[in-house]
């Protein structure tokens, strides 16, 4: 549905996006992740036809965004970082204008606008001026604007920025509900968001792609060893020594300790399940096993690892990483 091939965008001497390629299948939600200034917005702007690429090309819904911009734009909905609202228009007037410039059939217009306001929960502000809306409402009016002409492709630049937690959950649900019928790219720097909404993630840093994978694969791929968290009703040094002796355990660290309860982080070689042995040792010594759970590397860790340069080279050896 979306095909990006060797996309490069330079602003004068600065290369904002450097040889980026990826594809998005129909009905998929792709998360675009990266620190501020990584080139997310630039890539999205090229995809929406806002600006042409310096090199490479982007094909959206079967049309090259540069050669057939009108066809591509007709099939794309875009929510920029700041929702493009006209402060002097009411929400309804604004959506009516958007419907007109996006060639929504006239007889369908009122119904479609009502529908969209319903879905994005902005019906109660329909007759308020856009300039007087709170950030959360602006964001949702922007979302309604992007979806108004029922595009195949939705490109959302930080759709949940500025929303409160309840609205974030609602918006996520809304976006998830759209997948299937729509192909969605959304950018964010909020990590739980991608792991909860997206099927695949593209991590971009300094204009280059450093990883493309599913959230699960990304977290496991970068995990060199399995880590277990144990909470034991025993004295720290004593128990640590005992745990260390369990076969397969590579490292034991004390994570926290209060009163007589100690928390341990136990590393073991990948693929080796040491849970039974650990439990047996603890129970055998007569200590209380209060908690045992696997610690997964969070996406935060993955992200930090990938976006610091050395780790990036290690995670994606095929990619040449430029040091500027």
């Amino acid at each position, binding site marked *: 549905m979306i095909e990006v091939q060797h996309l490069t965008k330079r602003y*004068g001497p600065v290369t904002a996006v450097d040889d980026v390629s990826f594809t998005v299948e129909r009905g998929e939600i792709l998360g675009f992740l990266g620190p501020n200034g990584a080139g997310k917005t630039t890539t999205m702007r090229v995809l929406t036809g806002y*600006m042409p690429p310096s090199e490479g090309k982007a094909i959206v819904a079967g049309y090259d965004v540069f050669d057939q911009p009108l066809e591509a734009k007709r099939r794309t909905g875009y929510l920029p970082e700041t929702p*493009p609202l*006209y*402060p002097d*228009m009411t929400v309804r007037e604004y959506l009516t204008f958007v419907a007109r410039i996006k*060639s929504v059939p006239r007889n369908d217009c009122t119904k479609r606008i009502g529908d969209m306001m319903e879905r994005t929960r902005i019906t109660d502000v329909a007759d308020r001026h856009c300039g007087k809306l709170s950030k959360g409402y602006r964001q949702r009016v922007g979302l309604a604007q992007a979806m108004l002409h029922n595009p195949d492709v939705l490109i959302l630049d930080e759709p949940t920025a500025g929303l409160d937690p309840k609205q974030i959950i609602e918006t996520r649900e809304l976006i998830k509900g759209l997948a299937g019928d729509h192909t969605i790219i959304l950018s964010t720097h909020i990590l739980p968001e991608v792991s909860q909404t997206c099927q695949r993630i593209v991590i971009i840093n300094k204009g280059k792609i450093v990883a493309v994978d599913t959230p699960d694969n990304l977290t496991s791929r970068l995990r060199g060893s399995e880590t277990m968290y144990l909470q034991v009703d025993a004295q720290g040094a004593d128990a640590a020594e005992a745990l260390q002796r369990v076969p397969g355990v590579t490292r034991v660290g004390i994570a926290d300790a209060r009163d007589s309860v100690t928390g341990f982080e136990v590393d073991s070689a990948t693929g080796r399940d040491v849970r039974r042995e650990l439990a047996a040792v603890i129970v055998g010594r007569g200590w209380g096993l209060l908690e045992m759970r696997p610690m997964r590397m969070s996406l935060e860790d993955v992200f930090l690892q990938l976006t610091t340069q050395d780790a990036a080279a290690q995670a994606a050896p095929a990619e040449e990483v430029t040091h500027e």
Partner: protein
Amino acid sequence: MNNILAIAHKELKSYFSTPIAYIVIGFFALLWGYFFWVMLLYFNQQSQLGGLGGGGSVDMNQQLIRPLFLNATVILLFLLPLITMRTYSEEKRSGTIELLLTSPLTDFQIITGKFLGAMGLYAAMLGVTVIHMVLLFSYGNPEWRPVVTGYIGLLLMGGCFISVGLFISSLTKNQIVSGIVTFGVFLLLWVINWPASFVGPTTQSVLNYLSITDHFDDFTKGILDTKHLVYYFSVISFGLFLTARAVDTERWRG
């Protein structure tokens, strides 16, 4: 066409939902009314002198309507930058330009729409002056041709200023900068032929040709000359063309 009208309609509406339209129309009405009153006093004096047999006939077209039109030019120099200064600048500043440029619209449609929107407000402005003309026609009997051509001339001259203003507005996201530069350029275009009588014949004709206001003169005399029509339409097209280039360049530069 529908797209162009959608943009034009939006522009016009945004003028009227902010104080701009009311201020511009209000001041235009005030200044035009003031000129009208002063020139009417002068005209009355002239016609009384004429009535005493001081020689020469009085002509309402020549001595009242024509000077009124010519003076309106000066009002336009001041007021039209206020109409055009925000057209592109505001969209760029607030980011709504992203909506327009990612919608299935061509640059031509956006620019023409914006131009027509500004022309709409300008036409509304001129509409106010019809009242004065109605008064003149009901109490006197001026010729109607120079009045009609005068209005055509005013519209076209204003169109030139608006298209130049649109271009300047497309260069910056700062409304104030846009307004001041537009005003400066308008003034220059107005006075450009002042040195005409001191220079050689070639330079003189070039300078006269460049002066947007100079071409208006014939319209006030009731003459609809193709030369001037071609000139005005060229300037308007050129201004819109430059705007399109500026929008496109901006897109490449990012």
